[in-house]
């Protein structure tokens, strides 16, 4: 063999690496590594094939979201107040739709933070309902002890009111009184059936009193779907969304 020296050297090196690969368990090591992060913004070119692919989905979605499903009599707002038009609409809609599935439900609880938008006066679209309730929360019914309902009342008092339906109360000096549930005075010795949604039932918003209910059962309906059905139902009956402030929570 008459290989020039430099090739021989290279060949040898390669051979060694081949042998090492054959014999060594970890023949490769990380010698260096680099990190980059790409910000994806308007400066990044777009692949039009991707846009073309999702465009039909977008158009169908847009058409679906823009569909008018009902009307409001007045704007549904949610100012910092014990009860609000949006809160009452939301809570009453849940009670109406929940009762269709489970007639034992006595009252409902949501939280102000869970209502993500207001409704304008006039046409209400699917998109409005998605904005109001973007989450996949599902309705659940909890059977609670009177003691846990008392804690729930304290929670509502501490929050200066939350969206409720089927329950009424007056608040003086951070104490609730004249509390009624389903039209009857609250009795700490009774049990009550609350409709809420899984996020709150599973401990969201620090509602410890909902953690260990006597019973829990699933309605198998998303809150958003219940709202959509509620509005569609009103429209079918020729009615508008007509939420009212009815003094269900009064702070003196």
């Amino acid at each position, binding site marked *: *063999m008459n*290989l020039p020296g430099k090739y*021989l*050297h*290279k*060949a*040898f*090196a*390669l*051979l*060694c*690496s*081949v*042998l*090492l*690969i*054959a014999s*060594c*368990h*970890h*023949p*490769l*090591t*990380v*010698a*260096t*590594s*680099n*990190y*980059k*992060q*790409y*910000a*994806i*913004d308007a*400066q*990044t*070119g*777009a*692949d*039009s*094939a*991707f*846009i073309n*692919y*999702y465009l039909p*989905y*977008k158009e*169908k*979605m847009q058409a*679906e979201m823009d569909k008018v499903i009902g009307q409001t009599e007045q704007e549904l707002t949610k100012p910092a107040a014990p009860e609000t038009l949006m809160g009452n609409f939301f809570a009453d809609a849940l009670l109406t739709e929940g009762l269709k599935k489970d007639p034992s439900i006595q009252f409902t609880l949501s939280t102000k933070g869970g209502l993500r938008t207001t409704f304008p006066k006039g046409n209400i679209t699917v*998109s409005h309902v*998605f904005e109001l309730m973007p989450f*996949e929360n*599902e309705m659940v019914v909890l059977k609670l002890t009177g003691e846990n309902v008392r804690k729930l009342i304290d929670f509502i008092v501490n929050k200066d009111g939350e969206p409720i339906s089927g329950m009424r109360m007056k608040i003086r000096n951070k104490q609730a009184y004249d509390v009624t549930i389903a039209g009857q005075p609250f009795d700490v010795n009774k049990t009550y059936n609350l409709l809420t949604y*899984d996020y709150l039932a*599973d*401990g969201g918003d620090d509602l410890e009193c909902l953690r260990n209910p006597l019973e829990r059962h*699933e309605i198998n309906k998303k809150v*958003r779907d219940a709202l959509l059905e509620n509005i569609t139902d009103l429209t079918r009956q020729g009615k508008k969304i007509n939420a009212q402030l009815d003094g269900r929570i009064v702070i003196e």
Partner: protein
Amino acid sequence: MEELLLNKNSRRDFLRKTGAAAALMTLGPVPFAALGKDAVVQLTILHTNDVHSRIEPFPMDGSRNQGLGGVARRAALIAKIRQEQKHVLLLDAGDVFQGTPYFNLYGGELEFTLMSKMGYDAATMGNHDFDNGISGFVKQLPHANFPFIVSNYNFDNTELQGKVLPYKVFKKGSVKVGVFGLGIELAGLVNKKNYGGIVYTDPIAKANEMASLLRNELGCEMVICLSHLGYKYKDDKVSDQVLARSTRNIDLIIGGHTHTFMKVPEEIMNLDGKPVHVNQVGFAGINLGRLDYFFHKETGKKKMVASVCPVNEYGMV
């Protein structure tokens, strides 16, 4: 074992050309510089997390992220990198689902299809990937041509049994890359009805088991954990930081869940005093992370040595 790591033809070719190769075997190691260019393998890892159904860029509505993200741009960027790099691994750390009406209306079909078109190699599952229940996820699986990898959920007797991998070994050039996945505890985070009979097991113990399998038994030069545990917490809840320092044999943790915008990967020493990189790139496809690892064929019996020097190039377009 060499056939796993070196193309058979090139080896035969080499032996034929040199002829006297066998005679050279006794001469001892050669300096590193003598190794040819082919002795370096560059592995480019691209990653996203918590994309949350963000198909289009955020709308121009004055919000903080307006105009950012978008799959068409990400696809173009990835295609460009693929033109430049031979060995690319494209990974996602979960929460593909939920966040725009695209998910609510189409159930994740579009997300999986577009990820498939971009050539994702694997993803792990996030808690929001259960938002339409196990069956909602299973229904969309035919739209994904890449595997989902979760090691610490037991899917026995659920619809996902046999449909999620505990790990996967990828061959990139001569480098074997082992990928496993860790999911977050679902109880309290996901409606029980939506995750049904899935049993969560301790991610630390499972990570050690998986990483040891990939490193020691399957001979991976690089072990990556796709994690949806979250970057860090105020309390002692298990996180990527805790994971990194409580395990062995992991090189890189690509994280998600906490939507953390990290400017550079964090380096954390593991139980063996070896560095682990932890990275996460925010959410919604606003950023694409890129890690380039250069593997050198060794010239001695020395084992894995990782001297890692992150180069900070944040915000590159």
